[in-house]
């Protein structure tokens, strides 16, 4: 069969070949165009599933993604314009999950240790394991992955989040079904799943035993984590209240396994026995114990994407607003940089998915009008915001644009 290219494909090809010369971080490249030019087995951030990114202390960008049952890491020394050849993290293939709410996570310690967590599915009955690996040689090689959940059970351990505190404590939290299994075995009801966590104080060499944060979490939403002082973290997750309401809870976790009281962070009144697959986002506020949070609900009180500033001292949300109530709008991501709050989310207008941005310069009391950053008319990942000492960046993968890494704070 003769290979012929449509005008569009020729144009894409030409664009793909031209782009490295343009050196523009905004103009990423679709995987399809790259593979047409460089071969179908190309491994690239632009072809990777559900990437996530982090800056190290020297300003290098590290991106983790999943491709063909392997987690890969690639480095960029020019803020996402070009990337190093991806390095395999797991030598043996495993069914690493990659979707909007389950993606490989990556953090880099002040000493340069690169640490990753991800989920590997172990069956099609919602079972999975929390996997962890690290590199102590600057990303040239990675340790054989190990399983962090310590129950030895073939049950659900999924929706992991990884966070490194300013003091270098590594927190890993996830949704866990060990308590559900045990309770159901006694013929008792157990709504949802549970939240568990662990901490490493030696850059991922060892972890303390798993600690339960809460029973009865929702089973299928990512958990938001933010710094709480130098050593602790606050986490925000979708929790089941009164057996049927899936709103949000917040708690503070300490490095010794100490868990604060669980507080209700949002009262949206979403009665649903279903999987929203729609987790929140959170960053610390200007004052201690204050957190900016954004979340999705289709509750009786709040429907759509919302923002509020939560105060742990008063247990009250302030300046709550509806960000976008359009059906199809979702997956917000927050960042704070030099006093400016950035909120990005993905909409849908019937034809395409616009990425929307709004900003606040007064700690979430007032907001700019939403502006559209980019749009795609093909499949796309959730948008993520990444901060460095120098600015705020959009991290977003789509079929049309490939992996986009774009600074927002200079716009």
């Amino acid at each position, binding site marked *: 069969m003769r290979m012929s290219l449509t005008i569009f*494909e020729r144009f894409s090809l030409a664009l793909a070949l031209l782009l490295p010369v343009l050196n523009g971080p905004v103009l990423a490249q679709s995987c399809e165009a790259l593979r*047409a030019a460089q071969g179908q087995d190309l491994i690239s951030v632009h072809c990777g599933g559900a990437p996530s990114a982090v800056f190290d202390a020297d300003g290098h960008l590290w991106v983790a993604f999943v491709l063909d049952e392997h987690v890969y890491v690639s480095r960029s020394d020019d803020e996402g314009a070009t990337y190093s050849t991806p390095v395999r993290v797991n030598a043996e293939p495993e069914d690493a999950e990659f979707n909007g709410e389950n993606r490989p996570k990556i953090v880099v310690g002040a000493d340069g240790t690169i640490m990753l967590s991800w989920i590997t599915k172990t069956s*099609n009955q919602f079972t999975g394991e929390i996997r962890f690996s690290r590199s102590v040689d600057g990303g040239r090689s990675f340790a054989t992955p190990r399983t962090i959940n310590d129950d030895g059970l073939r049950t659900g351990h999924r929706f992991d989040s990884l966070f490194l505190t300013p003091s270098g404590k590594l927190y890993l939290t996830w949704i866990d079904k060990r308590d559900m299994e045990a309770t159901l075995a006694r013929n008792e009801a157990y709504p949802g799943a549970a939240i568990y966590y662990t901490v490493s104080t030696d850059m991922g060499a060892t972890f303390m035993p798993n600690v339960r944060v809460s029973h009865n979490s929702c089973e*299928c939403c990512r958990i938001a984590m933010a710094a709480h002082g130098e050593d602790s973290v606050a986490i925000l997750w979708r929790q089941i209240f009164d057996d049927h309401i899936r709103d949000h809870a917040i708690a503070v976790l300490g490095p010794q396994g100490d868990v604060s009281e669980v507080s209700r962070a949002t009262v949206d009144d979403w009665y649903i026995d*279903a999987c929203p697959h729609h987790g929140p986002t959170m960053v610390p506020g200007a004052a201690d114990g204050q957190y900016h949070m954004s979340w999705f609900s289709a509750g009786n009180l709040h429907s759509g994407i919302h923002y509020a500033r939560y105060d742990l001292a008063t247990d009250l949300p302030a300046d709550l607003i509806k960000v976008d109530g359009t059906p199809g709008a*979702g997956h917000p991501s927050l960042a704070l940089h030099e006093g400016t709050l950035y909120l990005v989310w993905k909409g849908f207008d019937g034809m395409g998915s616009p990425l929307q941005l709004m900003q606040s310069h007064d700690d979430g009391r007032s907001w700019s009008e939403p502006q559209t950053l980019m749009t795609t008319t093909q499949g796309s990942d959730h948008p993520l915001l990444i901060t460095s000492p120098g600015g705020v960046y959009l991290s977003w993968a789509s*079929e049309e644009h490939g992996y986009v890494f774009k600074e927002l704070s200079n716009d």
Partner: protein
Amino acid sequence: MTRNPLRQLLAAVALCMAALPGAVADNIQDFGPQTFAQIKAQFAGKPFIVSLWSVDCAPCRVELDMLGKLKQADPDFPLVVISTDTIEKREEAADILLGYALDGVPTWMFADSFVERLRFSIDPMWYGELPRSYFYAPDHSFTAHSGILTAAKLAELFPYQADSVDQREHDR
């Protein structure tokens, strides 16, 4: 898209497998941007139920279990089952449907990675939560339900079971 040699090869393999009796044992079809309109056209003037699920949705299994039993009790029940998973998960989805005796029911799977558009084609007001079900009256006015569909809820939202059977009797 079809000019990708790997995809051409895969398509050829798929065609060959389809030609072999029993090689592709499921009743799963691709769900594209036009599919929902086609489904509605098939049920013109008739009531039907749509159940949306995915392999990653635990509560969906409870609903599939109920629907499988319903379908066994009444093989003519007007049920449309759509998985929001990508077609790559076809084998997994087929296994699950088999487990609930829904393997004989024509079902669909999302066959376009631009899932937002597929969701929109079913219902612009749907946020994507699962399970999600729709109850279409004969005039195709509809009610939506999010969360596990119980037999009781189904009876409440879909009072056409007897009517639809009557209608089929009448058609004969």
